[in-house]
């Protein structure tokens, strides 16, 4: 079986803004051809690097975001480069690009031009602020998107006003998810109508959409929410949900809907297994008013002491087994020890033939029983598939490829 997008050809002209979107499509089976400037795309310069040796083929960040792609180099600043791109685009299903607004049209490769010879083509631009508007030419980064999009206004601490941007490059993930969704919708439409279209995706808008109820609280009630340590933004300071466990790790322990006689009894059952229920079995806690009056004793006293007496993983599994929606706060590397992920076959061995070994990569967000997700190959080396694509597929002969290389085209 192959992925749902098997047979689709995607041309990716993308930097850090769009490489994740290309990966989403490639791991679902599309033949994604990453088109880089001669010498390689700048994301190859982002660390960490294999064994901390900086090299354009050793960036682990580049490796991760460019799985299941083939790679060619092409200089769009040359007339020969543009002509080659036109030939590639005539045979492609999707073009994904992250150039500054207007750049492709300015060099004669805008959507209208490409469509004229390939009406079924889908072109998706994924840019910081979209193709129109007063901020369309502004420059950005992951951090500044998290500021403008509202992520930072919602994340931080009880004890300081400093807004915190969660790490990991998630502004690019947010933009990539929405762009992928739009491309997928256009593909479904094309599968029925045969028509392509142009998609203008804004990372700023994607980020602005990704703060759950913050917008609704303002629109419907005029409320501006405040940051809270490790838990939801809220109008006023709420009860803490993050507790330090015995091993120095934290546990996120949410009491859904707040304390009530029923969940206080369940909490006592859980804590009693470890002899840590304290006075929670006292019948007085069957009275909601007493629970409310004693909530600090229950949460900051008994619950905090219980969690402090055990390793975070043990609290997590013991609580989940008794119906509490709690989680250990894990560092990313802890996931390698997660038995559930192993049960689901989440980790993938990806061959790196140039190094003579394979490495473990994270796998699929969802299991498809009819068209499985798969990493079809590791990220391409710089220009790795030039010969395969220009000669074997486009029909250039070896001499022509040499001349193109000599002239800075590939």
């Amino acid at each position, binding site marked *: 079986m192959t992925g*749902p997008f098997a047979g689709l050809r995607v041309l990716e002209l993308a930097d850090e803004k769009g490489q994740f979107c290309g990966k989403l499509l490639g791991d679902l089976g599309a033949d994604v051809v990453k088109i880089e400037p001669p010498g390689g795309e700048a994301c190859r310069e982002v*660390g*960490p690097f294999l064994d901390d040796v900086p090299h354009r083929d050793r960036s682990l960040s580049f490796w991760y975001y460019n799985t299941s792609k083939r790679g060619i180099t092409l200089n769009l600043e040359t007339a020969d480069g543009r002509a080659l791109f036109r030939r590639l685009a005539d045979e492609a299903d999707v073009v994904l690009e992250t150039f500054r607004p207007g750049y492709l049209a300015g060099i004669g490769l805008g959507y209208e031009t490409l469509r004229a010879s390939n009406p079924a083509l889908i072109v998706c631009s994924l840019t910081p602020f*979209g193709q129109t*508007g007063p901020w369309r030419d*502004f420059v*950005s980064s992951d*951090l*500044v998107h*998290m*500021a*403008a*999009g509202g992520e930072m206004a*919602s994340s931080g601490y009880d004890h300081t006003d400093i807004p915190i*941007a*969660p*790490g990991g*490059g998630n502004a690019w*993930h947010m933009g990539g998810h929405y762009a992928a969704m*739009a491309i*997928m*919708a*256009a593909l479904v*439409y094309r599968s*029925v109508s045969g028509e392509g*279209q142009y*998609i*203008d*995706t*804004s990372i700023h*808008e994607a980020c*602005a959409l990704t*703060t*759950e*109820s*913050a*917008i*609704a*609280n303002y629109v*419907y*009630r005029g409320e501006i929410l*405040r940051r809270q340590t*490790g838990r*939801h933004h809220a109008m006023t300071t709420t009860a803490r*949900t993050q507790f330090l466990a015995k091993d120095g790790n934290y546990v*996120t322990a949410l009491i859904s809907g707040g304390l009530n006689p029923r969940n206080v009894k369940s909490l006592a059952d859980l804590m009693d297994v470890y002899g840590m229920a304290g006075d929670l079995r006292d019948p007085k806690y069957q009275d909601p008013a007493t629970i409310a009056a004693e909530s600090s004793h229950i949460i900051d006293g008994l619950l905090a002491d219980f969690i402090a007496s055990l390793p975070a993983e043990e609290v997590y599994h013991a609580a989940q087994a008794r119906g509490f929606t709690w*989680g*250990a706060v*894990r560092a*990313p590397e802890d996931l*390698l020890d997660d*038995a559930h*992920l192993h*049960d*689901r076959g*989440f980790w993938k061995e990806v061959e790196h033939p140039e190094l003579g070994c394979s490495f473990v990569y994270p796998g699929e*967000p*969802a299991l498809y*029983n*009819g068209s499985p997700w798969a990493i079809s190959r590791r990220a391409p080396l710089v220009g790795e598939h030039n010969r395969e694509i220009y000669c074997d597929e486009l029909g250039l002969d070896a001499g022509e490829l040499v001349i193109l290389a000599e002239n800075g085209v590939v």
Partner: protein
Amino acid sequence: MTAKRALENIRIVDFSWVRAGPWATRWLGALGAEVIKIEWPESERGRLPSSTTPQGLPVNLNTSGNFNDTNVNKKSLTLNVRSAKGLDIVKRLIAKSDVVIENFSSRVLRNWGLGYEAMCEIKPDIVYVSMSGYGHTGRNHAYTTFGPVAQAAAGLTFQSGLPNEAPAGWGWSYMDDTGGMYGAMCVLTGLYHRNMTGKGQHIDQSQMVSSAPLNGPALLDFTVNKRGSRRQGFPPGNRAHWPGTPLLNNYRGPTVAPHNAYRTAPGGYNDWCTIVCHSDTEWQALERLIGGTPDPRFATVAGRLAHQDDLDTMIEAWTSTLDKYEVMTQCQAAGVRAMPVQSAEDRVDNDPQLRHRGMYRPLEHPALGTFKVQNAPFVLSETPAVNTLPSPMIGQHTREILEGLLGFDAAEVRAGFADGTFWPPTRPLFPYQEEMLR
């Protein structure tokens, strides 16, 4: 002329509730699918409890603002799926639909007798997307999640915060929003594959598992270089690197300085502006804006990283005299990456870009009134994603669906209300339901 829609003629049976599932189907509705939300007032999660009911309106099943924004573009059918008659109606609906989507815990639909195989007997090419906390397979499939728990268990929470402090985490259910994205993408890929091959499938999406791939570079740093994230200076707050700790990449882009949030005038809770310089050229442009004599310690990226505290103090002395939008405007005019920290109010009322792009457009809801609703972050040239319907009032479309789609007559609809199939007999009807049954 009415615009074409990407999901024209696609019908979705939507059992999803709370946030992640409804956020998925919201977009499928905006793309043109007919989304039939199956609900039951006695076991509703999403409409209540509501902390987003406008002041002055009663809190009831139809007045949650957040529910409205999360459930635009859908119809509501109230149905007791735990009765034999209700389940039979579900099967008749599935027979006429393209997609079934739900975000119950892992065994619920199977326990109803509606596992994937059973659905295939009703509709052989059905696309079935389940969105559960941990997925339908794996030893912890019965575990439950909220966004913050998935985020914690999958490594996202850990990567947010200041070094030597508790994690700041994410101030909302990021994985409800993002889980919704994956749910929608699963439906779209399933539909594409069905259209190309004629075959449906079951796609088993998990909120916790979907979180894990969002840590890609950090995970590879461990699986390849054996370097974990439990280390000095990690996570580095808003910086790319925390001064005085080993110089290591922190998984959000190049290691550069400045890279921080700075106080702006007048010093209110959300008066901050972020500034990032990716090159000497960008730094020199910022230095010219700030004025004064250039500090030679800051001439190189190595120097700026080594003296980051002094660098940030110097920048903040400048930003704290200016409004955050003024900092942004001056920096952007000079080619420097800078954006203000924007609250919800800033985004809805003060952001000229979002205004220009029509991000928040008013939509009238029969119980709430007219409020702004969030729009798609993309423009599809041929098949625009648009919010055509406000969120449904509970059971608003019950009669329309039963009669129009399933061929019930008016007497059968009334009988179903009387016998508890379409509404709990002891629960008062809303006036629009009384009207519907007249």
